[in-house]
């Protein structure tokens, strides 16, 4: 039992807890906040996996940007702040059954897959390595992603804009 295992256990417990809380709390904002817990825990797990840069990005984008965006979404729409109708039990059961089958199958597959134990030094100058990788091997995808982001930006503005704004 070393520190890594303890850290993994705590972080994974926190992330699963956050996800489950998302399912069972009643207020929409609480759901969102519980999920933020999951996102933070995942950032910690990324650190365990020698991906410090990804962890930071995770915190910035998910815990920060996406969550804030969702909060804006909640604020801009009208809610009675909680689910007012009882959940659809039948569909929940059917979906749950399907998910359990899926889970069992994939779980079985994971148990059988052999993994190498070898650990390259990903954590040494992690950000530098990523930078080299992106700007040497993945320049074109990187640029394409920027175009996608631009398109998403324009699209989001276009969609979210009030109708009838064309004249103004």
């Amino acid at each position, binding site marked *: 039992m070393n520190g890594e295992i303890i850290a993994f256990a705590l972080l994974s417990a926190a992330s699963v807890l956050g996800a489950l809380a998302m399912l069972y709390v009643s207020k929409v904002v609480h759901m969102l906040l519980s999920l933020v817990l999951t996102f933070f825990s995942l950032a910690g797990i990324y650190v365990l996996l020698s991906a410090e840069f990804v962890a930071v990005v995770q915190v910035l984008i998910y815990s920060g940007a996406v969550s804030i965006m969702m909060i804006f979404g909640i604020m801009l729409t009208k809610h009675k702040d909680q689910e007012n109708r009882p959940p659809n039990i039948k*569909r929940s059961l059917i979906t749950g059954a399907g998910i359990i089958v*899926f889970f069992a199958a994939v779980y079985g597959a994971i148990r059988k897959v052999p993994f190498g134990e070898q650990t390259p030094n990903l954590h040494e100058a992690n950000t530098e390595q990523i930078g080299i990788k992106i700007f040497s091997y993945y320049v074109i995808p990187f640029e394409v992603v920027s175009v996608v982001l631009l398109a998403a930006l324009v699209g989001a503005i276009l969609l979210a804009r009030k109708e009838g704004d064309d004249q103004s």
Partner: protein
Amino acid sequence: MISFAWLIPLFPLLSFLVLILSGKKLKTVSGYLASLLTGISFIFTLGVIADLRSVTEYEATWTWLTIGTTDIQAGVWLNPLNGLMLFIVSFVSLLVHIYSLGYMGENDRRATYFAYLGLFTFAMLGLVMSPNLIQFYMFWELVGLGSFLLIGFYLYKESAKRAARKAFIMTRIGDAGLLVGLILIFWQTGSLSFTEIFQAVEQNEFAPGMVTLTAILLFIGAVGKSGQFPLHTWLPDAMEGPTPVSALIHAATMVAAGVYLVAAAYPLFLASEWALMIVAVIGAFTAIFAATIGLVQDDLKRVLAYSTVSQLGYMMLALGAGGYVAGMFHLTTHAFFKALLFLAAGSVILALRKQNIKEIAGEGRHLAITKWGFLAGTLAISGFPLLSGSFSKEAIFAALLEDGQYGLLGVALLTAFLTSVYMFRLYFMVFHGKGADKPPKSVPVSMKIPVIILAALAVISGFFATGFADWLAAEQEYAVLHHSPTWLIFLATLLSLGGIVFAYFIYVRKQMDREEWKTTFSSTYTILYHKYFIDEFYQNTIIYSTRAISYLMYYTERYVVETIAAFAAGMVKEIGKTGSRLQNGRVQTYGTVALLGLAVIVLIFVVRGGYF
């Protein structure tokens, strides 16, 4: 003229089509139109017969269907036998049409009636001209349909409907035999054309025993159509139809179809000793069997019906004993005198409005023409010397003697005696007696003319026996007219006259008390009166067992099959309902369905280790 022979059946068909399509508008002229068209058909027939004297055989066919390597032909086939049948059919049909003008009078549905007559005549003319068995079979079934429609013409009468159904079903039994025979013949020879079948018979192409089998199967068809024992019961019941129809069915057409079938396929029968024997025995048995029933029946038309069955038995007997000419000659003379008897009986029924001979009790004596016509027919059928029936019967006796069938000859002679007894019983009871003396309704002229013509033919047609034999002999070498020795002629005449005298003493002079006979031979009387209980026998055996099977099937269908069907249908319906419920436009539902599909696929992948 002969190349236009194919037009002959088309005129009655035209009559049928016109009347069935626009009969309501043509009500008053419908009968005249139908008679005119049948008359044209008759004139064409006469022309064809005139040609046939020089041509003797004519066949015109074209390919109708090609199945694999087999061509099925349709067309016309004419030879002396066909010509003879054409003449009888179109002639009697024409007379019946004319007679019906009067008989149907102001009946509301007379256009329909004449339409059915046209269909029936068309079917019969087509039947006798068929060059192959498949066309023959089609017209054969059409004849059955026509008879069904005509027997059931008074469709408001329950008994008429029942009789029509019975006729249809009983003849269907025979038809099944014919169909099987037809298929066997095709299997053996690869052809259904009469001429090719005969060639095959000559060259012994049939498998052993197959000739006999096919001949017997064809004969079963003839038994059904011609009302031979044991399928005879429909014929007396068919009396529910209008009387002219009875004349048409019993004299010239439907019942003659069976005899014609045996005659047309005669080489096939000649090739098998056994088949001929069976034809002869069935014919003889039917003849005497029906004659005994005829002795005690009280319904005017029913007695005539049983006499028809009996006379048809004679024809079969003659054919079975090798008396080809005798049989066909008897068919011809019988066509005349039986049509005459029925048409005369129709006049009696129309004038007196009753047909039970005990109720009539001599009231018919006021109808002069009808009376003399009926007498001529009765004398003819009884074999009174020098009338047509005596010649044809004598030819049959001669054929039997020639063939050495002494037992059957005895039966035939006894039947001849019985025939004259019951026919004169009928005649005396209808036209001699002290029934009510009120003048009966007058009979229209259109009904008298056919009776007169037929009476003349019934009297004189016997003198054409030799010419008739020559006519048929032009084509077939087996068409030989047998001449009987003097003692046989003498014996037959004696029996015929004896029957007449016997009937005279019982029914006119009342020398013997009929009621006393009834009590003395009460069991015999009961059996005969109930027609040997054949109908009851069928009712209690075949019909009940069929009904039991039907009920079994019905309940199986109702409870087993329908449950399965309902289950299948319900399942499909439920699946459809579920499917349509899934199409509710909600993303999550679609997502769930997709997930379930994925789960199933993954599960299969896990369990089977691959996609199936």
